[in-house]
């Protein structure tokens, strides 16, 4: 039995680098320090994995050798005139680099999953900039933490504990004590309401904790946590203050806050379901903190307004810097989506949705982005790596993707693999293959190879290199 420590977790954008793995006979038997999602991956990754290469023959996926599958993939790509290469956020920077070379070689479109998550955030940052930082600064110094349209409890389970409200920094303490006290008080309150409701036979629901009361009771100088969302998420339950916005109303609320911060008066009673009084209090808390941060999620990028929501959130942050120090950061989902943007940018000049069909890189999200290329039915072949667009794309885009010759490189038999024409199994990067990833704050971290991949299973990087080699050979002949 060996214990490997300081393992970087290859699941979400937090890239926690303190995981300890207990390994016996080339098998992970325990993952320590891991959250539920991380443990689910480390301890179960091999359960539903695919070990065989497949090629579709007469409508059926039939087993093939790896060499055949690689040759077939190269043929499909070399013959196509406008292929799309999609995925990339769950593989290593080294593999992404080879992917970009391949896209240039075949004159295709290459796009990563940020196109359907934080693509709008990137567009917004390109328009108005971004007041960024690394997570260490936030852990040590931030005394006001706001999650806006993001639900770390479910999507980035250790984010609060390692980098934000529940972490202990050099100048800031965690807020556990306050949270446990509140949970205890809440459960007592629930019991009392239940007893009352039994006696009076009314009111099933516990009235939600009044935001106002909790704000006034907050000790000054201590870390505070605000959650803004359209639904009362689990993260919202931990917050000192939960602000529920009507769906599609984030833009209005953010603009209202900008006005209040500039001491302008609002002559309405509420904005998108939030009373102006509440907004005034939030504006006060924002101005009076020493260092605040907004972590925003897909609640802003996926709902009405998209990039404009993010743009106004960034502008709010910029305005706040006239009064105090304020930062903003997107909550990136996949463990290397930031790396995908970074490698794309240093190789082509653009972070995603790059089109090589003219022989040079072109970037125009809305035209060269995966969903648009597929919706128009332009692509005539596709390679999907470390992603499952058949489950993640809207129906029309998924249907058009299933219609064209499709190559899938993935350790799982994903839905996309089930409709593919060539399936190539790969090693799990961060478990069976090493590589580099970028954490959500652009800090690069090394992924470890802690166990050997099964015989004959190559890493994404090796598979792509072999496809590229074969494509070059075919083009020469």
């Amino acid at each position, binding site marked *: 039995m060996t214990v490997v420590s300081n393992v970087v977790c290859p699941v979400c954008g937090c890239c926690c680098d303190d995981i300890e793995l207990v390994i016996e006979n080339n098998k992970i038997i325990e993952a320590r320090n891991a959250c539920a*999602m991380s443990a*689910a991956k480390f301890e179960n990754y091999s*359960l539903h994995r695919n070990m065989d290469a497949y090629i579709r023959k007469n409508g059926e996926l039939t087993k093939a050798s790896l060499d055949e599958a690689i040759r077939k993939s190269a043929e499909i790509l070399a013959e196509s005139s406008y292929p799309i290469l999609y995925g990339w956020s769950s593989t290593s920077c080294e593999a992404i680099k080879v992917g970009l070379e391949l896209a240039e070689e075949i004159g295709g479109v290459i796009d990563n999953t940020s196109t359907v998550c934080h693509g709008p955030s990137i567009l917004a940052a390109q328009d108005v900039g971004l007041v960024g930082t690394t997570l260490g600064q936030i852990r040590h110094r931030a005394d006001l933490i706001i999650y806006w349209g993001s*639900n770390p409890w479910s999507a980035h389970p250790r984010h609060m504990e390692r980098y934000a409200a529940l972490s202990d920094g050099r100048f800031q303490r965690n807020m556990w004590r306050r949270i446990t006290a509140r949970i205890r008080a809440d459960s007592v309150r629930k019991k009392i309401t239940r007893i009352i409701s039994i006696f009076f036979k009314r009111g099933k*629901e516990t009235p939600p904790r009044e935001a106002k009361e909790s704000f006034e009771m907050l000790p000054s100088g201590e870390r505070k946590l605000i959650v803004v969302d359209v639904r009362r998420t689990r993260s919202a339950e931990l917050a000192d203050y939960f602000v529920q916005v009507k769906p599609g109303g984030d833009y209005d609320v953010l603009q209202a806050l900008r006005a209040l911060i500039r001491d302008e008066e609002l002559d309405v009673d509420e904005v998108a379901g939030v009373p102006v009084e509440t907004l005034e209090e939030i504006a006060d808390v924002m101005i009076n903190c020493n260092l605040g941060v907004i972590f925003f999620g897909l609640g802003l990028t996926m709902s009405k307004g998209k990039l404009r929501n993010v743009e106004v959130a960034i502008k709010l942050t910029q305005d706040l810097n006239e009064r105090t120090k304020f930062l903003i950061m997107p909550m990136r989902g996949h463990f290397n989506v930031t790396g995908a943007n970074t490698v794309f940018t240093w190789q082509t000049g653009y972070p*995603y949705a790059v089109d090589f069909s003219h022989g040079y890189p072109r970037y125009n999200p809305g035209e060269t*982005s995966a*969903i648009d290329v597929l919706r128009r039915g332009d692509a005539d072949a596709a390679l999907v790596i470390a992603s499952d667009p058949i489950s993640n794309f809207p*129906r029309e885009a998924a249907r058009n993707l299933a219609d064209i010759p499709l190559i899938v490189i993935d350790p799982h038999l994903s839905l996309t693999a089930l409709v593919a024409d060539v399936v190539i199994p790969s090693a799990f990067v961060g478990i069976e293959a090493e590589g580099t990833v970028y954490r959500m704050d652009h800090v690069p971290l090394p992924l470890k190879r802690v166990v050997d991949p099964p015989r004959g299973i190559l890493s994404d990087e090796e598979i792509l290199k072999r496809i590229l080699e074969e494509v070059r050979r075919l083009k020469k002949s």
Partner: protein
Amino acid sequence: MEILILTGRTINQGCGKEIGKASKEYVESVAVCEMNEKDMENLRIRDGDRVKVTTEFGSVILTAKKSRRIRSPGTAFIPYGPWANYIMGSSTDGTGMPLLKGVPAHVEPTEEKVSTIRDLIDSITV
């Protein structure tokens, strides 16, 4: 009944996805429609009954789940996954990003079985 569909991540969906999308855990955590209690009363359905959710782009059958997280009637929540995506449109309004949160839909009770992964795949391949 007309309703606004929100989508998002849940911890069960996150874990199910890591175990594998063929797993029972994944299907049980994703093929659900979390609703407000009042809306469920109006539709005369109970926790675990099936609902058919239809948008202009298609329909899916999901298991209805009462959720106290959906505080205002008129909204429902479906975790990220093929069930949610197959009723979303793919127009991006020139941004590259389709609208995936806050989509209007019609919800009705149904006796049909919850759509399987097979049903979803057939709906795009056949």
